[in-house]
């Protein structure tokens, strides 16, 4: 079992090493090898489902002696750094999503003809980084994987990208790096701050232990708030939310199609995951204090992204802005932390699970949308929305699949986008009616820009752009990728409990422990205030 976790992370790396031995010219064999590697990784990640106990909220699989992690191996013992992996209901869906989207993106990579070996190697290293982020339970390890993921992405955009690839790659890199540095500062704050709470007086990077300290009211509120802001900005860049989002349109526009799929499908989820896994559990008090700002930023991003999407004329840029809008729901859902007399934390749990579902749903729908843009871009080599039209007549199957995927993005019931969005919005009134109304207002704008796009691209009497002869029907590989994504969009939309069952226990526990952490910190602060008061009076 412990081996499985490492195998999932490093299978792509092994694949990447394997590719080094291939002849530079053996392009097809390399592609199939890389594809096989992603398939194996996906199957391995499915293996996580086998021992997974949906009723158990803790990190799985359990080691003995109360160590709630799959693997704990000393790495740099002098600094208390461990190689510590494990998963629970919060990370499992994202791990599955990652290996799934990687597989499909690999299938979409057949059109890459430039320096194929380098591309494939970087692609696989990227997958290692992503999976590592979702499996790591040691803050330092998490940070390492976070950075590991960054570099391949930089090169993948910077070498295989479009005309302004250098600009986009650097923008992406610097933005993310700025976030990483903030995260690094926060990490060190917790590392050194934790020494006074651990039994042996050793500082720790163990996320579970740090979370436990926070749950018992450790880390004083001031520090929690400071650390939370640092962590939040670091993760908000990744989500991305207004005003940290402008790297996204550029990166997407310039990145090749499969990289856009990964970027939208997986990388953005790391921001949300980081907030849920690290920022909230480590600083519950800070999170509670900042919750209103988070919901407000999320709600504003929804509206802002939708408006910005509406004004775009570049097909890919439009989809990129729709990501900003959709990921706003994630932030709203995570942060609707309200202690209601009647519902208890049920509404918050609903928001949290809605947010996590939205991450999965967006992973599927946005990857699909980018893929659909890529299919037509590969044929006619332009993305100007005003120079399309009539594709429904020329490529009926493509148009049908694209309509389905775009409807998923539109939040149509029966498709995955609806569940995430509507659950978040429903839970939000309990927190703040005004912000809930703002968030709900997104439904009108989303319908507006998606339908308008469909009209401009797929409907109409004829195609208005260059290379009409290149608009050939989809090939089998493309049909497979799009079809699989649409099927998953439908399955998750109709049977959302498939995901919710995985998340339920872990989220419930998370919400409870955050609540306790906040109360404990409050109680401690009150104690301190009382002591101070007493001393002053004396």
């Amino acid at each position: 079992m412990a081996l499985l976790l490492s195998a999932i992370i490093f299978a792509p790396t092994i694949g990447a090493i394997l590719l080094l031995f291939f002849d530079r010219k053996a392009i097809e064999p390399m592609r199939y090898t890389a594809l096989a590697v992603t398939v194996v990784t996906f199957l391995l990640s499915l293996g996580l489902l086998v021992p997974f106990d949906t009723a158990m909220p803790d990190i799985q699989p359990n080691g003995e002696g109360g160590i709630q992690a799959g693997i704990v191996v000393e790495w740099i013992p002098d600094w208390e750094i461990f190689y510590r992996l494990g998963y629970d209901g919060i990370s499992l869906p994202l791990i599955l999503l990652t290996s799934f989207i990687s597989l499909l993106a690999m299938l979409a990579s057949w059109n890459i003809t430039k320096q194929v070996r380098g591309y494939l190697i970087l692609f696989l290293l990227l997958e290692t980084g992503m999976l590592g982020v979702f499996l790591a339970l040691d803050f330092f390890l998490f940070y390492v994987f976070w950075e590991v993921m960054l570099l391949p992405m930089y090169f993948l955009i910077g070498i295989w990208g479009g005309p302004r690839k250098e600009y986009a790659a650097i923008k992406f890199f610097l933005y993310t790096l700025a976030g990483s540095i903030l995260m690094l500062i926060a990490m060190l704050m917790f590392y050194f701050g934790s020494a006074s709470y651990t039994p042996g007086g050793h500082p720790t990077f163990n996320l579970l232990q740090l979370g436990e300290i926070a749950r018992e009211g450790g880390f004083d509120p001031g520090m929690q708030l400071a650390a939370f802001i640092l962590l939040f900005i670091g993760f908000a860049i990744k989500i991305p939310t207004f005003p940290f989002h402008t790297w996204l349109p550029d990166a997407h526009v310039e990145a090749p199609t499969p990289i856009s799929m990964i970027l939208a499908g997986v990388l953005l989820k790391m921001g949300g995951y980081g907030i849920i896994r690290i920022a909230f559990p480590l600083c519950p008090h800070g999170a509670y204090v900042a919750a209103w700002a988070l919901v407000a930023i999320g709600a504003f991003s929804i509206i802002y992204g939708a408006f910005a999407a509406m004004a775009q004329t570049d097909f890919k840029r439009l989809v990129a802005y729709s990501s900003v809008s959709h990921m706003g729901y994630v932030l709203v859902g995570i942060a609707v932390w309200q202690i209601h007399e009647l519902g208890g934390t049920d509404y918050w749990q609903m928001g949290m699970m809605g947010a996590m579902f939205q991450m999965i749903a967006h992973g599927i729908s946005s990857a699909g949308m980018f893929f659909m843009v890529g299919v037509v871009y590969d044929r006619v080599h332009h993305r100007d929305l005003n120079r399309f039209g009539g594709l429904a007549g020329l490529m009926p199957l493509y148009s049908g699949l694209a309509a389905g995927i775009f409807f998923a993005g539109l939040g149509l019931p029966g498709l995955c986008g609806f569940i995430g969005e509507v659950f978040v919005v429903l839970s939000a009134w309990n927190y703040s009616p005004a912000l809930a109304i703002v968030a709900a207002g997104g439904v009108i704008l989303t319908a507006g820009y998606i339908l308008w796009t469909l009209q401009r691209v797929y409907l109409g009497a004829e195609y208005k752009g260059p290379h009409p002869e290149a608009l050939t029907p989809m090939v089998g590989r493309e049909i497979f990728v799009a079809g699989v994504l649409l099927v998953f969009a439908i399955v998750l939309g109709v049977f959302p409990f498939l995901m919710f069952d995985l998340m339920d226990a872990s989220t419930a526990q998370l919400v409870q422990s955050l609540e306790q952490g906040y109360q404990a910190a409050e109680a401690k602060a009150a104690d301190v205030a009382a002591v101070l008061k007493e001393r002053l009076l004396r």
Partner: protein
Amino acid sequence: MLDWIWILLTAAWLLPLLGFAVEVFGGYWQQSRRDRTPALIAVACIGAGFVLSVAAFIIWGSETHWGVFAAEPEHGDVPAQQAVEDTTREAAAEDASELQPADAGQQHSYRKAISGTIYTLARFGDLKLSIDYYVDSLTLVMFMMVTLIATCIHIFALGYMSDELTDEYVDHQAHTAGGDHVHRPGRYYLFFSYMSLFCFSMLGLVLAGNIFQVFIFWELVGICSYLLIGFYVERHSASTAANKAFIMNRVGDFGFLIGLMVIWTYFGTFSLGPETIGDETRPGIFAMVRNAEGGLDIRNESGSPVVHLNGSVAEADDAGAADGEAAVTAERTIPYWLLVVAGLGVFAGCIGKSAQFPLQTWLPDAMEGPTPVSALVHSATMVAAGVYLAGRFYPVFTPDVLLVMSYVGCITLFLAATIAVVATDIKRVLAYSTISQLGYMMLGIGVAGWAAGLFHLITHAFFKSLMFLCSGSVIIGCHHEQEMPRMGGLRRKMPITAYTMLVGVIAISGLAIPFTILGMKLAFSGYHSKDAIVATALAFNYKNPVHFLLFLVPLVTAGITAFYMFRLWFYTFCGEPRDRHIYDHAHESPRVMTLPLIVLAVFAAGVAVGGEGGPLYRMLLASEPAGVDVGSEAIDPTVAFIPEDVGYALVGQPARAEIHSVHAQAGAFALIAAAAGAVLAFLLYVVRVVDPGEIKRQVGGLYRFLIEKWHFDTLYDVAFVRPVHRVAAALAWFDRVVIDGILHWFANTSVRIASWDRKVDEGLVDGLVNLVGNVTFRVGRSLRAVQTGQLRQYIMFIALGVLSLFVLQFIFFPR
């Protein structure tokens, strides 16, 4: 046996989905486009749905011993006591799908709803979202109506859409940039797959057992409507109309969503009937908000009214428990104003879906879709879903919301009728008439004529789908001509269409022979239902004289309705042909199209047989929420701010007895109005006492105002569409220029600092280093001159050195 009811209905609901899957994925696009199989599958699915619905109805009837049709006292004399016997209280206490046998003590078992869960979508602690069913007599009526009409329309469409059965369809209304017509393969299979998907969505909406599920299918019928309006994707007008329909519906759904949020937060459930969570059964929304008498339990808490919600979890367990937490949860309340918000929110959804003022403008444009779509989606079923929901959700609506509803309906019915008078496109006249009739239904429900409003929904569905199909038959007969000024005299060419249409026209106008034969009025369905609405409005008017417009406007509009409907009929079918070419080529439609017309005509005439004593009305009445028949008194808020039991209301609602007492009077008024309208149309368009064109010129300003549809499209374009695009452009600019500008400033500044750094580095630091190096080098270089390699010279240097050392020593350190 009772379980069979929902199983059958679920099967009827899912069959069209299966049909859709087969039709769309069955590969019918691959071979020839001439295959009728997908259409036949669609017809079979929906036809089977009808059979299953009827079977469910029969089971339901026999299980309740047909109590619904049993002789009852005349409706006016129903003692108020009986209303107490309601679904809600007992339903709350009993198992979800358990229905008591109809013994002596339980005469009204037919009034109970059967509800339960099909599967759970998600659970969050005590919150549950699921796919439920909720079946009462209203559900059954709706199921039979929808499946029957849909079957007729599907069969009609077999013929109507048959020109799609070709590999090269020429769309004469879609042009390429070169001005040619668009040629494309036929899409017969696609049309029927969309129709099947629509039927699935619509039936799901009716079967839905919770309001969230209603919302799900609400959106799904919306997207089906989008697909069907935009069926001719090549036509820009069609795709624009489809977008408009969906987006305007979303505006209403935005309100719906707000209503849902309030309900979810304060009720903690969406379920209409009792809901089971774990091993605990909780009451649904209706039982929570209404007490057994159908009243709202309003209390005054710290100066503002709140509504007490009954039977929450803890109360059901043990109301007097010492457990403090349970005592808290037992007091579930919702501030009164939020209940109003919830009601208005849900009603906003109804406004969008039923094309009520101010969201009415999408429906006429929706006529871009094929005519069977207009008949099924945009007149009989989907647009009526708004009214259905208003009826279904009635217990949650406070009197204030109902008053808003009445006025919205009232404005809509007048506004649409006036536009219908000047419209010349045969389908658009019908579209405006649909909007107007939906306004009647809303008004009816709003003035507490619950059963009257839904009665009109059912009758309207039949006669309006009939008329749309007739118009479709005319359009096909005239080779896709829709303008009435180019028709005329067609009854000689297409008699079946003409006379079935006449049935519909009489029905909608509400004409009747003002005496009874064998105790039954000689009248078509529309007379009964419109009569019921007008009577309720009149009784409402007597009770609340301030709101006299709610009676006057519908009455006047009844006349206008008769006028424009007869105008349509005379214009199309009577007089001399105005376009010889069209007339000469006109023909009666094939039997596959006329047969549904005849069937629908029979129903349009007879579905409401017996009026308010008839089976249809009794079926509807069996689902009426408690307390509606008792009515309420108007409360003057200055006298009694918080009333004890009747509800917090600015308006009084008429009791059934009061409505009954003014029925004859209202009926007479309505009949006079309708007859006047019909006669006027006859005079203008058949006898031609005055030339209508002359009138048009006389009131040119008004005419243009009406032709421009009261300028709503222009207004919305200026007020909403353009500002939205402008804001979007502004935000995109902000993104590009401001945010990225700041970033670029930082980047450029860094680069500039770096270049200064480079200068400092190269000029100063490197300069110093280089200086040292250079000096050393130069010194070394200059010293090279002395490296001659000549021994004598070196010795001389050494000697000179030693000498100078001694000299220095003597100078600096003299002894």
